[in-house]
């Protein structure tokens, strides 16, 4: 908790902004399309947020280390391809492949820490490795989702639709781990003040590997949920998730540097990014504008923050 009252207000604003933005978007959507208000309407609108909220959390792990992951989308595509190809027919081999994917991610984090390489280069390079592997195992779209996975994403829990349940659980876990648990604070310290963390006796190498390993776990889950939703695999399905996940973290209150992240905000940010498409559709604006609008949101958010900092200084 920041001691300075001015900074405290900025912190609260930073945490509240994504929540307010999402509430405004939802209000506009319900105003334009009252049908969206129902359980079923919400479920349909938010269904595809399932992979995105996990992708956002994965990206958040990397951004917490003041790194950036440009290979996440391709990685999700790889998991999507592997799981569609293996999990239904050879579950054991499929599970091993998932484990290997997570270990590869942790290894990538260790590699970046040991060689002190810029993450942007390593993850961009890795993205081609993920895409290549995905195309190698699944040259043309195909495969099928295991029955339990397809059934999972079709679940209709009482009261709240599945994506909302997942989002609440994930936001709660992320908040507890990164903001409340002691190792979470250490991990954020790797991005914020690495020397201090090292001086306190924590291994930067282990920390970065843990962050990337956790990103691998979340990325894997995102890929699995994508397989469940699409019931099939495609090496290119994951591609949009790189930029969407970065945008979700930033819109949700994260910063590119300094280990400043907000898990709850990132989950809200994922919803904001996803709902831009539906909102445009309900407003009868051509969906060709979706990418531009998502980009504009990002610029507005970063611009406001820069202005805030200027005003504070």
């Amino acid at each position, binding site marked *: 908790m920041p001691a300075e009252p001015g900074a405290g207000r900025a912190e609260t604003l930073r945490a509240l902004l994504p929540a307010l933005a999402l509430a405004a978007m939802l209000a506009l959507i319900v105003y334009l399309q009252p049908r969206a208000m129902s359980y079923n309407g919400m479920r349909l609108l938010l269904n595809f947020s399932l992979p995105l909220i996990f992708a956002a959390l994965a990206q958040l792990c990397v951004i917490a280390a003041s790194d950036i992951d440009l290979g996440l989308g391709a990685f999700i595509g790889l998991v999507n391809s592997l799981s569609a190809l293996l999990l239904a027919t050879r579950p054991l081999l499929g599970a091993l492949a998932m484990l290997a994917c997570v270990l590869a991610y942790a290894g990538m984090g260790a590699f970046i820490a040991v060689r002190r390489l810029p993450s942007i280069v390593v993850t961009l390079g890795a993205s081609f490795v993920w895409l290549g592997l995905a195309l190698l195992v699944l040259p043309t*779209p195909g495969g099928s989702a295991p029955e339990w996975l397809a059934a999972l994403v079709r679940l209709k829990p009482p009261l709240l639709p599945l994506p909302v349940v997942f989002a609440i659980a994930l936001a709660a876990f992320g908040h507890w781990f990164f903001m409340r648990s002691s190792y979470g604070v250490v991990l954020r310290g790797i991005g914020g003040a690495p020397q201090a963390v090292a001086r306190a006796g924590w291994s930067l190498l282990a920390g970065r590997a843990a962050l990337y390993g956790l990103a691998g776990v979340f990325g894997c889950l995102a890929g699995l949920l*994508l397989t469940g939703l699409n019931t099939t695999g495609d090496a290119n399905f994951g591609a*949009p998730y790189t930029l969407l996940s970065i945008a979700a973290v930033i819109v949700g209150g994260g910063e590119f540097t300094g280990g400043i992240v907000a898990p709850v905000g990132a989950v809200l940010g994922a919803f904001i990014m996803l709902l831009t498409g539906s909102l445009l559709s309900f407003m009868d604006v051509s969906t060709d504008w979706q990418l531009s609008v998502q980009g504009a949101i990002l610029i507005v958010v970063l611009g406001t923050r820069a202005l805030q900092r200027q005003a504070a200084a």
Partner: protein
Amino acid sequence: MKTLRIAALAAAFGIAGSIGGMARAADTGVATGDTAGKKIALSNSYAGNSWRQQMLKTWNRATADAIAAHLIKQTKVVNANASAPEQANQIESLIVEGWDAIVINAASPTALNGVIQEACDQHIVVVVFDGLATAPCAYKVAYDYTSMGKMEADFVGKHLDGKGNVLEVRGIAGVSVDDDIHKGIIEGFAADPGIKLAGSVHGNWTQTIAQREVASVLPSLPPINAVVTQGGDGWGTYEAFKAAGRPTPLIIFGNRQDELALWHDLLKADPKYDTFSASSAPGCASVAFWVAQQVLAGKTVPKMITLPLPVIHAADLDAWLKVMPPGSVATPVYTQAWTAQVIDANAAGVAPPASPIAKAGDM
């Protein structure tokens, strides 16, 4: 035709609206159930090439006609950026918006099946075309590409008297359309043991790529008597032969304006230059639209509808060229009446009517 008269009578008394969903013009012909209040949306997987742009244009033409004739109330086009998850998400928005029918050019044969099923469960009519999806509840409007390949092989076999060397220019590897046309060609040539497939390249349905690929294999090939193609590659093939100083073989064309213009020039130089041109038509979007409208109007429609490919012979060449702007693909905007005939032919299991010649302004 009795039902038609009853429907007309009902309309005269102003009660057509109340029995709209039930009215049906016998078992054949255009169903006349009231669809004036219906809304039909198009979910398109990709809009970034000229074929797709023309496809969207035919959709807009057909829907504008339908709205003017009070056959539907509203339409909308939603484009995904060649991304199946994005398209699935967009279709889920369309379901929430309560469209009566959703017409889909799918980004993946299987990835949209879940959301298509979701739409069917909400009693939304789903029609897929061009890029098909395998969901069983969707109506599928498709071309028989195998028969296109076979037609090419038969024509070449007859023209060469069953003897000669043939070069095959294929499409994009791994796409089902390419496999199907290729299969038809192989099947067709099986009847002509004297025909030898001397070579095969992938021209990716793109003139410049076809030209480069054909040019690179030509030096290794014996004299070529004929080239079978898949569309969008005939002009490039001709250029490659010309640049290599080889005599122009019989090239099957693929309905692109540049190919038809070239054929016109070849005919002027040699009136005996005999070939034909065939390709899928972007206008299949207008067929898919009318299929959706007819289902809403109460017509019994089979789940699988095979469309005839527009085939252009020398006799129709001038008529086509007159209405085609440069860079276009030959396509009519199909009408409700023609679509009903195609549906009936498919239901009866007989050959559908031939694709009509386009009118001015269709492209």
